[in-house]
């Protein structure tokens, strides 16, 4: 299998005034197409930093991050944005839906930015995904009319609608109760199986971890190792 993401000897140092905070220290990592990968580690260990670098919303202080064959350190801000739009889907801890748009419009939003599909194709794709996440009859609702779990399902649909190769999720279950969180992970897992979309998500939750097929352990900005999860069932 070919690597969709390769992180090589990456360091990220945040500057807080005069003091420097090293968030990542010499991290190297390869993610293959179709993986369903979890990042685990204590608070402040650098999970979010790692995801931001892989997600092309931030660039490393040193080292290289190659996503979908492109070296992000060499790309302009505009090119990075285009890369995110076309190749990466995002799921956020606090769902981050656009409050004033309906469920349908939220999911449609990346397609409008891409501007490749006509109205009908967009509608078909959005409705298909809403069916898939179990919200077929909530298309006209506003995010505020949905539960947390439902909102995160909308977010999953939005992340997948542009058919990205990679979906990143930073603690997608942190704002959900454990049962709902587990359901979301299952949903992601289904999508991963169905279209082979690569998933990388971070979590604190041991129960959630058990759903991943591999876990990267991170502590103090350094990779501790990578272990394959023995599937419970």
């Amino acid at each position, binding site marked *: 299998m070919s690597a969709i993401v390769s992180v090589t000897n990456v360091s990220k140092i945040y500057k807080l005034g005069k003091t420097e905070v090293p968030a990542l220290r010499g991290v190297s990592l390869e993610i293959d197409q179709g993986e369903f990968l979890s990042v685990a580690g204590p608070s402040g260990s650098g999970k979010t930093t790692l995801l931001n670098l892989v997600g092309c*919303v931030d660039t490393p202080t040193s080292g290289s991050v190659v996503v979908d064959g492109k070296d992000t350190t060499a790309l302009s801000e505009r090119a990075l944005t285009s890369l995110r739009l076309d190749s990466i889907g995002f799921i956020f801890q606090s769902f*981050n839906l656009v409050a004033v*748009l309906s469920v349908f419009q939220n999911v449609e939003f990346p397609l409008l*930015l891409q*501007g490749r599909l006509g109205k009908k194709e967009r509608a078909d794709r959005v409705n298909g995904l809403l069916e898939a996440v179990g919200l077929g009859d909530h298309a006209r609702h506003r995010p505020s009319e949905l539960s947390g779990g439902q909102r995160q399902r909308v977010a999953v649909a939005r992340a997948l609608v542009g058919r990205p190769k990679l979906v990143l999720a930073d603690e997608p279950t942190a704002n959900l109760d454990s049962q709902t969180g587990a359901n979301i992970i299952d949903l992601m897992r289904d999508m991963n199986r169905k279209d082979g979309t690569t998933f990388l998500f971070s979590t604190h939750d041991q129960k959630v971890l058990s759903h991943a097929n591999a876990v990267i352990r991170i502590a103090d900005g350094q990779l501790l190792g990578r272990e394959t999860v023995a599937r419970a069932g």
Partner: protein
Amino acid sequence: MASPVGKIRILLGIAGRNLFASRARTAIIGAILLLGTALVVAGSSLVESVDRGMRSSIQGSLGGHLQVYSAASKDELALYGGMGREPLLEPIVDFARVKEALSRVPNVKRVVPMGIDQALVAGGNQLDIGLEKLRADVRFLEGGDRSAELLRRYEAHKSHLRRMISLLWDELQASRALADDQLIRDRKQANEDLARASSPAFWDGFEKDRLGSLEFLENRVAPQAMEGTTTFVRYVGTDIDAFMEAFDRAYVVEGERVPKGQRGILLGKWYAEEYLKLKSARRLDKLKDARDYQRRTIAADAELQRWVKENQSQLNEIQMQLDPLQAEEAVARLQKGLGSSEKELGKLLSELLRTSDADFDHKYRLYYEQLAPLLQLYSIRVGDTITIKAASRSGFINSVNVKVYGFVHFRGLEKSRLAGVMSLLDLMTWRDLYGYLSREQSEEMTALRAAAGTRQVSRENAEAELFGGGGGVEAVSQKAARIDEAAVLADIGGRKKSDDLFDRVYTQEERDRGVALNAAILLRDPSRLRQTQAELEKAAPGLGLKVVDWQKASGLVGQSVSLFRMVLYTAVLIIFAVALVIINNAMVMATLQRVREIGTMRAIGAQRRFVTAMLLVETAAVSLLFGAGGAGLGAFAVWLIRALGGIPAGNDQLYFFFSGPALLPTLGTTSVAISMALVLVVSLISGFYPALIAMKVSPVEAMASDD
């Protein structure tokens, strides 16, 4: 190509929904924009309408499109008067040359010579008229006529005169009570003369020396009655025919136009109403106007009550006019009209003028229908010859006699003092008053005077004397200009001398050759005013002239519209500056609240320009929406004002600005365009900073957890 449409749709959708989601904020911003635009639209429409009204007033009554005057002038031209006095202008020595040169510019239609000044007018004097009648009677008596009819008339005229003098005496005694010692000492001689004239001894001795007594009355008493009836007249010396053609608002309301090329004056009708009319009649008119048009009542208005009181206490002006026979008739008519058995005229008049809201209309009619025909309502009548005195250029008091041919009004400006106070004086008479002599003219004059020896050249026939009546050179003898007031007053009987001058017809050439102070220029195509002004300016320096447009030429009056406009624009500026700050603040706050949303969009793949546009569209949408609404509101206000009859011209100044009794504003397309442009600029400026914030939002913001 689904992308741009879809993107714009989503931008508008997000903007609309955001505006709706934060209704309170939108409402505040909207209200400010709504009122701001409404104010701009309505306000600038009003100012434009005033501008149009005033332009029409000035252009149609005195200003024309452009004006020229000597570049050497100390002051600037001010057609409606400067700061408390007429501006000092250097004369245009040879108007004919100026007219010829300016007429060569193709767009110039007409050049009208002008000279504006103020002068004292000795209004018709009742005592004079009485004396004239008596003198005629005396002449017949001295000639040996002893008919009963003559004697009856003679006695009536004599007793009328005696009564007038005794009324004058009473008046003087009344004013003595108020005057200070110095004034009484100054007036000692006059006082003694009047005392003598009102004494029974004087009248007992009248028959012994009729001519001597008459002379005494004419020389020593009549001048005292004169003072009260002297008024200031503001006039434009002009080629009256050219003036009437050029200024379509001017029309003769009574009498006739001065015959072509002749000397004469058309008195301003407004001036006549205000200054020449019997005070009681004028006050009745004002009362009627206040009651009928301003809906005021005598009962509730202190000013109207004051007019009624003044009317009752100033009966002399009426009584002076009535000789005993007329007085008898007046008593009979008033007894009937008032249903009274009172026999004393004074009491009847007092009763007539004691008007209340209930009987005003009846008494007003009674006054005009029954009493007025017995009276001379205006102290100057069509056909009268009046004496005008003004300070000439050389500083001497100059005086001319001129015949009143009629009264002139300015259409649509009938109640405006600014326009209506103006009288039209023929150019030749004006030049006599102005007293300008060119160097050749004064040399010629000196030579002629030497040839004539020591003989005095009187003012009235100076021209005939000097140039045999046909020279066409305008000149006034410096010697003759040195006329003091006493000489003028003594001169009243001698008006006949100038009759031949009054009948003379001056050719166009004669009228053009000579002095003017300024000239109005009327254009064929007024829309090309600026170009023509530039063309004239090129020609002007060679002639020593300055060219100004009508607005500048009108002086303070023209500047008042600029003042209105400045006030309005300042208000607009303040409103929009406040709007800018408020909108900007509100949008910045809103943007800061949406940092995570913007970050999310950026993370998902929205480019910077998308989120920037999103913010700008939002401000632009709210601005355009409420801006258009405000423009509509302003347009509605303008329409409403029109529908309700306009803004009434509360005073005569406004009458002039509004060019009529009410301002009927029209919606200016430029006002709407300007206001929309302003709103757009304000919204773009106030949306700029929030958009900048949005642009700087990093996609990392999306990851931040809120709690």
